[in-house]
């Protein structure tokens, strides 16, 4: 599904290199988790995959279903099935959440040559999905993320994911700042979307999210690359012992 090969990325306006030869393969239908200290480049990786400005890819490639992502506009990547749940969802005053969702959904359908949803069809769908995420009518009407609590913003990200039905979902610290109940709602939302043709890349600091969203593969990332890959037990090991040992094995320290 997603294949990142030897990806090197620096900031466009500075000499700072952030990704230093990143390799990662996420198979179709699998859930991969990435853990790693702050500043490892996890968010940068997800932004680069989604096409945010400000970064320069100096080497390497990233493909989705065999198609080169890095040549596409952000909206083309979305239509191709990529979705990023933002670590910090963006507030957009004056644009209703519903309008936003409908515009996005129909734009993607149009880009894929599919029929756009009518207002009625859309409403039915969004109400159904919102209900399972405990998103009420008021939250749907309000401007995108404006005045939403941290938990509401994250649930809103999952609602977008549920509506857009992407093939490859990247969740960037979707659990951070959530209490136990909110995290369970988010995890249930994600689990409901698990499907044989859909893959997930879950970026998190905490084992606790992975208790709810069970990963097939766990990667440890630091200093712009993947240091180690293993099964779910790797997450437990990090939870108990921290990153120090793994970092040390690669000649790194927990400098930050």
């Amino acid at each position, binding site marked *: 599904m997603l294949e990142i090969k030897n990806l090197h990325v620096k900031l466009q306006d500075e000499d700072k290199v952030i990704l230093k030869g990143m390799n990662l393969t996420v198979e179709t239908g699998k859930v991969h988790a990435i853990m790693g200290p702050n500043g490892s480049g996890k968010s940068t990786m997800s932004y680069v995959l*989604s*096409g*945010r*400005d400000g970064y320069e890819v100096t080497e390497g490639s990233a493909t989705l279903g065999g198609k080169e992502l890095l040549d596409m*506009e*952000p*909206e083309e*990547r*979305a*239509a191709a099935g990529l*979705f*990023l749940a*933002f670590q910090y*969802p*963006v*507030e*957009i*005053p*004056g*644009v209703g959440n519903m*309008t*936003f969702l409908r*515009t*996005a*959904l129909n*734009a*993607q359908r149009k*880009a894929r040559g599919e029929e756009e949803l009518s207002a009625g069809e859309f409403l039915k769908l969004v109400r159904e999905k919102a209900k399972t995420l405990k998103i009420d009518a008021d939250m749907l009407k309000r*401007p995108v993320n404006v005045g939403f609590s941290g938990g509401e913003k994250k649930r809103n990200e999952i609602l*977008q994911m549920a509506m*857009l039905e992407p093939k490859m979902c990247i969740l960037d610290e979707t659990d951070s700042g959530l209490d136990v109940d909110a995290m369970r709602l988010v995890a249930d939302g994600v689990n409901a979307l698990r499907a044989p043709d859909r893959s997930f890349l879950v970026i998190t600091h905490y084992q606790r999210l992975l208790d709810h969203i069970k990963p097939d593969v766990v990667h440890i990332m630091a200093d712009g690359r993947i240091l180690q890959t293993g099964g779910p037990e790797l997450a437990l090991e990090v939870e108990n012992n921290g990153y120090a040992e793994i970092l040390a094995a690669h000649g790194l320290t927990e400098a930050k």
Partner: protein
Amino acid sequence: MADALTAGPGFVPERKAAAERLGAMGLPGRRDEYWRWTDPATLNAPDPKPAQAGEAEAPLFDALDRLKVVFVDGVFDAGASDDLSLAGVEITRLATSAPGWAEGLYGTLEATGQVPVKRPFAALNTAQATDGLLIRVTAAAAKPINLIYVHKSETSDPILHHLIRLEEGAELTLLETGPAGARFNKAMEVDLAKGARFHHIRIQGPDQERRAVTHIFARLADAALFKSFTLTFNGVLTRNEAFVEMLGDDAMAHVAGAALGDGRDGAFHHDDTVFVTHDGLRGESRQVFKKVLKGGAIGTFQGKILVKPGAQKTDGYQISQSLLLDDDSQFLAKPELEIYADDVKCSHGSTTGAIDETALFYLRSRGVPEEDAKGLLVLSFLADAIDEIEDAALKEEIVARLEDWLARHRS
């Protein structure tokens, strides 16, 4: 501009007084404090610069039950207008009617209002207006009145003056649409008695070559409500002045505007000049002005909240903002507060910014194409101004027009 001899028959003393005021003031120049950013030369010139009428727009407010009053190049067109009878409202023409109830009122609001802003074009208008309506409302008007200004002649130079009086507790929604002429001078005096409610929605349509200087003069008695929203598209030069005098207690006045200009269609210069005076207790005023500028367009805002001694518990708010869609465009703002009472809450702010890159990326990452995403962010930027329109149907119409404009002006 039009000859005084061709002015309407009534209001001779009022017109004479206005002509004298104009004589004393003289026409404005760039050295006048409130004309520093807007060059009045083409407005001062004896003849207008020729202007082609823009392509026909989708008819505005078409689905709305309203009383239509049509002016073609500034002349009332009875054939195109509805019958001027409306329950709760008396409507007569300035050009042909005896002054009646308006005697002694015509020109009064224009002549008073906040100093030190000189308003020579308004005095000129009072002196020389050739047509317009005298509207007296005694109850809740049965439906909105829509003044439709049609621009046909390349050299039309209309001067229209409307005088509107809402008696105690009366209500009216007034709609104005269309460009009116090659050069348009309009004054509208609105006198609101106790508890009267006046809503004004105006669309200054995409008529690229027109020039316009317009004035609103409002006077509010106790608990009166005045709400005005203007949407402006293009136009070589538009100066919209509003002077609101809140004389009564518990009055509320909101003046808002959204202007969108693309200099690539020709020059674009839009000027909002707004002066609100609080002279009663517990008055609430809001000024919300937003401009979206591209292709070398220029927007200016000069606005003041004046709180007179004794106008305690005033709540005054003013915001002027611009969204610059490229580096060529320019926004100039002069926000002012002048406060002579101690127990008041007043705030003002002015900002200039570009499209928020983070928001743009967020929308695009959801699959919204770049230009559509920019359109959404423009609507997002304008939302506070549009929200000043209370009526949902009118608001929808305004948003639809905005979307049309945005669709025609992709980068």
